[in-house]
C-alpha cells in the first residue's frame, strides 16, 4: 500500500533573472521518511527548500506540501512544518530559551515553557538554556536552530544543510535526533553535500545544476557503482570488474571454486560519493573505495 505523500513536486522550475535555479524538478516524499537532497553548493537545494516553505515562488510546475500549496495556503502549512535555514537565523543577544520561546509564540502553543524545556532537553542544551546565543559554539548554535524548528512538534521538518560546519561527533548526534523524530512519525527532508550522511536517509535525490539526476534508496544507488574483485594467487593478482556485484560476485567466485592457491580476496566497490560524482558527470581525482 502506498503511504501518503508529504511532498509532491512535479515539473518545478525556478529562475532568478536569467539564472535557471531549478529545472523540471520532480520529487515525491512519503510521510515518515527521511529524504536526502544531495548536491554540490549551488545545485539548487536551498532554493527547493525555500519553495517548500513558501519563501520563494516557483515559475512553473505544481507543488503540494502536506496536501497544501506552499504560497496560497502558507498560513495553514506553516503551522505544520519546521524549517531550519542554512544560517543559524537566531537572535544572538537573546538566550537559547528566549529564542525558542519567541519562535514558539508564533505558533500559538499551549504550555510553551514546558515545550521549550522539552525541546532543549531533546537537543541536549538544557545546561545552556539561559546563556546568550552569542556565547555558544557554532555546533551549539546549530542545535538551538534545530530546536527552534522543532519546538512546535511539526509534521514535516525541512532542514537546509543542518550539519554544515559541525564536527563528526555532533553530526552523529544530529542524525540520531533525526532518526528518533522519523521513528515518531515526523517526515524529514534534509539537504546535504556530505555523502557519508546520505546513507542515513530512506531515499535520496541527487541534484545538480538545478536538475534531479536520480532518486533512489542509498542501497540501490550503491549497487549502481562498479565493483572490482581482486584475487591473488600467491604473488599473482587478477582483477574482475563487475557491474552488478551482488549477482556477478557469486558467478565470478564459482569460476575459482576457491582453489587452495587463492590466498586473498578483496572486493573494492565505488563509494556513494564516486557514484554520485559519476552521475553528475564529474571526473573525480581522488575517489577512494570501500573495501
Amino acid at each position, binding site marked *: 500500500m502506498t503511504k501518503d505523500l508529504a511532498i509532491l513536486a512535479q515539473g518545478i522550475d525556478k529562475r*532568478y533573472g536569467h539564472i535557471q535555479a531549478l529545472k523540471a524538478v520532480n520529487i515525491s516524499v512519503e510521510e515518515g521518511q527521511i529524504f536526502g537532497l544531495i548536491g554540490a553548493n549551488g545545485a539548487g537545494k536551498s532554493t527547493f527548500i525555500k519553495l517548500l516553505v513558501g519563501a*520563494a515562488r516557483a515559475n512553473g510546475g505544481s507543488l503540494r506540501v502536506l496536501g497544501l500549496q506552499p504560497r496560497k495556503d502558507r498560513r495553514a502549512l506553516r503551522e505544520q512544518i519546521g*524549517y531550519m*535555514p*542554512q544560517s543559524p*537565523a537566531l*537572535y544572538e543577544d537573546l538566550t537559547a530559551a528566549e529564542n525558542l520561546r*519567541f519562535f514558539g509564540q508564533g505558533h*500559538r502553543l499551549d504550555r510553551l515553557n514546558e515545550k521549550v524545556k522539552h525541546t532543549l532537553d531533546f537537543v541536549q542544551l538544557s545546561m545552556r538554556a539561559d546563556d546568550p546565543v552569542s556565547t555558544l559554539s557554532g555546533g551549539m548554535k546549530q542545535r538551538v536552530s534545530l530546536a527552534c524548528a522543532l519546538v512546535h512538534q511539526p509534521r514535516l521538518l525541512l532542514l537546509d544543510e543542518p550539519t554544515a560546519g559541525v564536527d563528526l561527533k555532533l553530526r552523529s548526534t544530529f542524525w540520531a535526533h533525526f532518526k528518533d523524530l522519523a521513528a515518531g512519525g515526523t517526515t524529514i527532508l534534509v539537504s546535504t553535500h556530505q555523502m557519508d550522511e546520505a546513507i542515513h536517509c530512506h531515499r535520496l535525490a541527487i541534484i545538480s545544476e538545478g536538475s534531479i539526476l536520480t532518486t533512489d534508496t542509498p542501497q540501490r544507488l550503491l549497487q549502481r557503482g562498479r565493483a572490482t574483485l581482486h584475487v591473488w594467487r600467491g604473488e599473482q593478482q587478477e582483477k574482475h570488474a563487475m557491474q552488478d556485484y551482488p549477482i556477478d560476485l557469486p558467478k565470478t567466485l564459482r569460476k575459482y571454486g576457491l582453489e587452495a592457491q587463492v590466498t586473498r580476496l578483496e572486493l573494492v566497490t565505488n563509494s556513494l560519493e564516486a557514484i554520485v560524482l559519476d552521475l553528475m558527470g564529474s571526473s573525480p581525482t581522488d575517489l577512494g573505495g570501500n573495501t
Partner: protein
Amino acid sequence: MEPFFRRVFSVAKRVLRQLQHDKRFIGLSLMVPVAIIYVLYVFFDSLNNPLLNANAYVFPFGAYIVHFLTFVLTAIVLVRERVTETLTRMMVNGYQQLEIILGYLIAYSTLATGQSLLVLVEITWLFKLDYSFATLASIYLVMWLLAVISMALAIFVSNFANNEGQVFPFIPLVTLPGMFLSGMVISIEVLPEWAQVLSRFTPVYYATEVLHALTSGGNLWDESAALLSLPAYGFVVLVLASFTLRDND
C-alpha cells in the same frame, strides 16, 4: 489575549530585550542626536546674526535629526533581519507581516520617545527658549509622530534592499528631500511648482508646517491639515509596508 496582539507584543518584547542587551546601540541612538544638536547650536551661535531668528529653524532641524536617525537605524535593523534569515524564520513560524511591523513600531517607539525628549530638552536649554509647557508638549508630539512615521517609512523601504549595502542609496533619497523641500531651510513658496508637489511626499514637510506655526506663537490646530496629515501619512506607509514586507524572493 487575541493571538494577533499576543504575537505583536511578542515581537515588541523580543526587540526590546535585544535593545536592552545592546547598550552601545541605545547609547549611540541617544547621544548622536544630542551631539548633532550641540553642533547646530555652535553653528547658530557662530553666525551671530541678529536678523536670523534661530527659533524658527532649531525645532524643525531637531525633528529632522530624529527623523534621519530613526529612519537609518530601523531600515538597517530590518534588512539585517532579512540577511540573517530571521525574518523568513519568523514568518515560517507563524508571524504575519502586520504583527511584525507593529511589534517593531511599539519597541522602537520607546527609543523614539527618549530621542525626541532629549532633543526637545537640549534645544530648549541651549537656545534658552521660553515656550509654554503646552507649546513644548505640542512640539514634542510632532517630533514623536515624525519619528514613528520614519520607522514605518524605513520598514517599507527595507523591502527594496537585500543587504545593508543596498540600504545606503535609499538614505539620501528618502531623507535629503526632507531637508531641502520641507520649508525647513527656505520657504516652499519660492520653489518651482514640481518641487512643491514633491515636498508633499516627505513627512518632514508636514512636521515643519506645524512646528513653524507653534514656534511663531500659534497652537497645534493652526495647521490642522498638516497635523492630521502626519498620522494619515504614517497610516498609508504602514499599510504599504505591511503589504510589501516580503517573506519570499
